[in-house]
């Protein structure tokens, strides 16, 4: 690792200026739990790291009737300790709660997790099923992009040189909705998802049918995968074992994993089916309160 500059701007504009100046030799820094490890491993040739934690917009965590705003530097523990978030965004809490241990959660941000764009990132699929949007700032001003379109490859995002993620907006969930996220790891903690699934459901006013469903899969493709077919299949279907099993089986076919040290193709596809099934049921349970 060679020396680089640490910059802690106080405004988005200042941050954009520094990032633009250094191009691909600058990286934004949230909790640093990915970035510093990667810098030591020589993944980046750095001139500057730009800490977002002094920028007010990046540290905002605000739940209102319009939804939830998560600043890109807000650490996981603040998310799962926030009463409003716990009440309305249980699926996001599921993700934030399992990222690393207590030390990591005290630094690691949801925004950092998203920008790191690991196929296994535990915060990303929950954001997708809640229909979240990324708020990006850059030399040409601000732009918004759906989180489901944010990751474009392992470690690759739509963020360009000079840009940074300011915050994430999550719409307020509908009535009678619930969401959940779970990953499979061979140990009980401190591991990377072999396969994981986030689900959100809205159930109709009879309580017996799915109104709409979002399913997203992690660790089974180069980016998080939106299981569109499985989600569409369930919309309007009665809530029962048959429909849920069928959706899980469709989701399994939407996964396109590889075999590596963390798991085999066969095992990962199977896990997607098992976890999708479990998460749909968990979401329904939460939707029913």
């Amino acid at each position: 690792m060679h020396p680089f500059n640490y910059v802690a701007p106080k405004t988005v504009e200042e941050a954009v200026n520094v990032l633009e100046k250094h191009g691909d030799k600058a990286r934004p820094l949230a909790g640093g739990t990915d970035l510093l490890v990667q810098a030591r491993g020589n993944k980046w040739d750095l001139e500057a790291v730009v800490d977002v934690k002094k920028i007010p917009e990046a540290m905002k965590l605000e739940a209102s009737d319009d939804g939830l705003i998560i600043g890109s530097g807000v650490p996981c523990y603040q998310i799962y300790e926030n009463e409003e978030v716990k009440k309305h965004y249980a699926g996001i809490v599921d993700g934030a709660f399992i990222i690393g241990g207590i030390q990591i959660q005290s630094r690691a941000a949801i925004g950092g997790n998203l920008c790191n764009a690991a196929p296994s990132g535990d915060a990303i699929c929950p954001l997708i099923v809640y229909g979240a949007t990324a708020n990006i700032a850059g030399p040409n001003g601000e732009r918004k992009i759906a989180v489901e379109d944010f990751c474009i490859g392992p470690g690759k995002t739509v963020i360009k040189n000079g840009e940074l993620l300011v915050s994430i907006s999550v719409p307020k969930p509908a009535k009678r909705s619930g969401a959940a996220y779970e990953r499979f790891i061979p140990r009980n903690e401190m591991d990377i998802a072999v396969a994981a699934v986030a689900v959100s459901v809205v159930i109709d006013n009879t309580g017996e049918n799915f109104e709409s469903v979002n399913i997203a899969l992690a660790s089974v493709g180069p980016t998080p995968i939106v299981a569109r077919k499985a989600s569409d299949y369930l919309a309007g279907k009665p809530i029962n074992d048959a429909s849920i099993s069928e959706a899980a089986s469709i989701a399994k076919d939407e996964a396109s994993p590889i075999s590596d040290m963390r798991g085999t193709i066969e095992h990962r596809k199977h896990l997607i089916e098992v976890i999708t099934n479990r998460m749909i049921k968990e979401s329904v349970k939460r939707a029913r309160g």
Partner: protein
Amino acid sequence: MVELFENKANYKVIGTRPVRHDGVDKVTGRAVYGADVKVPGLIWGEVLRSTEVHAKIKSIDTSAAEKFPGVIAVMTHDDLATPGRDTTRNGLNDVDREFFNIMAKDKVMYKGHVIAAVAAIDRNTAQEAVRKIKVEYEKLQPVTNVDDAVAKNAPILLDDLIGDHLGEDVKNTNIATHFRHEFGNVEEGFESADLIVDKEVTLQMVHQGYIEPHNATAIWNEDNKVTVWSSTQGSFGVRDQTAKFIGLPPSSVRVNYSEIGGGFGGKTKVYLSPIAAILSKKSNGRPVKIVMDRPSVFQATGPAPGGKVRVKMGVTNEGKITAAHATIRYEAGAYPGSAVNAGAICIFACYEMPASRIDGYDIVVNKPKSAAYRAPGSPQAAFAIETVIDEICDQKGWDKIQFRLDNAAKKGTRRGDGVLLEKIGFEESLQAAQKSEHWNSDIGKSKEGKLRGRGLACGYWMNGGGLSTCDLMLTDDGTVMMNEGSADIGGTRASIAMQAAEVLGLSAEDIKPTIPDTDSIGYTGMTGGSRTTFATGYAAYLAAQSMVDQLKSRVAILWELNEDDIDFNEGFFTSNDQELKISIKELSGKLESTGGPVSSTASVNMAAGGNGYAVHICDLEIDPETGKTDVVRYTAIQDVGKAIHPSYAEGQIQGGVVQGIGWALNEEYYLHPDGSMANHSFLDYRMPTCLDMPMIETIMVEVPNPNHPYGVRGVGEVTLAPPIAAASNAVKDATNKRILEQPIKPSRILKAIRD
């Protein structure tokens, strides 16, 4: 829980649980570990490691590194001393091959193999500079498992290797050694059997996984005296190995003791000390420090061998073993010298049988050179034999403890390598298992949809003896300063001090142990082979007795009596007629007037340390939908001889179980298609965390070792032998499927269940 099998003397200190002498420093962070060492003028070294798994080195260009600002010295293999010319049957001596493991010369044998090194003003500079060294490789086909290594037309990894195949010299081979131990008529034994079970297990390399990475700091003085600090299991081993690689006599190298953050056998070899020393020499004597990172620890330091172990065993309908044949093939790694010899000693050591044949193969592959790991070679062997025993019992419907009792090794049993066993505690351990709460309680209800199973397995480790030294010095306040040469990796300061305290009738706290540098204590072998409490403890015992003898002569002067008229008991000297009495504490203030300070020393060379046996019971829960396992209950029963400090003996037993569970269920060297290790971080290596472990119950059986005054057998290693088999047998019990491939990971379990 302690079970006694013999009436013991009434100990005052032994068997109690005092706080360890190094405890406060360790919990307050004050203890100095190898990487904490700071000396004036310190500079940093860094090594360049091979990016290839198997390749010829065509050229090494260090010029850019030499010119890099801040660089002080650069070295390659040619800067090391010249290997000895002694050859053995195997061609070059195994020790001399280590010259090429320390730093490659013409060829790299595994990814991470060290090629060159630099010293620079700070660590970052050294790291940047080392990357400027250019190496031109000619890639060769890698060989990464025992089957590929012995296949026809396999690439030959070491051109000059002469294999010893049952006494024949064989060239062009990757099998460094094939040896055989045999007694009885094995063929007849199999013919007279009513049931023969024959199974082969496959294992991957696994790492010891100590928290503290390897490190070394060295100063090469102008007078060609070298000072070294290194976290190690044995300072004298570091001294002797370093001296050899840098071409100095051992007496020119002084190794300072530093605390060690885990070793488990992996810190018995030097990797960095010779490099730091040469870099210091080339830097005009500046102290040079090198600390490995975790990927290097995984990729280039002592894993335990993987390989294949096959066991064929015959039994009669009456439940007696008639014969057994084991074929043990271990991956030595890049150079010869796996733990196959020890594996062969251990494999049948739990059982008595009329005929036995054990074939051992030491096989060279393109992986890091394997090193010792807690009962080296025994866990892999136990996986095979204990699987076969479990299968025999399953097929015959026999009780798994009773069958073992009916065939248990005891005093006079011939071990597979021919040795007749002395008094051992295997039957007592099996009986303790039979009576245990765990074995007699129901397996419990599993969580919804989960499967539960119980497995039992046994293990053996011979325990070492060897060379040790202990010095004692009585101070005038009645405490005793103790110097002993054994690196303390598991509470041995306490267990050694307690043995001296017992003799002297003092408390454990009255003894103040120190582990000095290699110039300041007699030779002491490394802490390994479960030898330390046994051998160094015996040296402490002898030194303490010698101190008592000396003190008796001082009392004789004080009381104007003959030494024969003075008794010593529990810290007090008394005259035969009981009229006079003085404690060691009081006497310590009267040394000056009776002849001056009192100190004593003892050095020992102990024969083997007395045969450790373990019986483990493991309850597992399996999620049949995902293949995930959870160990829900675990009991380790072990003959410890005598637990000097029961808490530390229990800690050793529990620690070994944790490592064994990791080995069984998730740990492995997972290779990329090119043969390099993919999961070289703790994140992906998947050792168990505390959330993966239940409280491990221990039952210590005490069948005293007849070869030690307090009956010590050594406890640290046999505990790692049974867990793989215990977990595997539990998986069989839960799923009715036997998985013969380690690790028994979720994907394998799921596949077995669904097939």
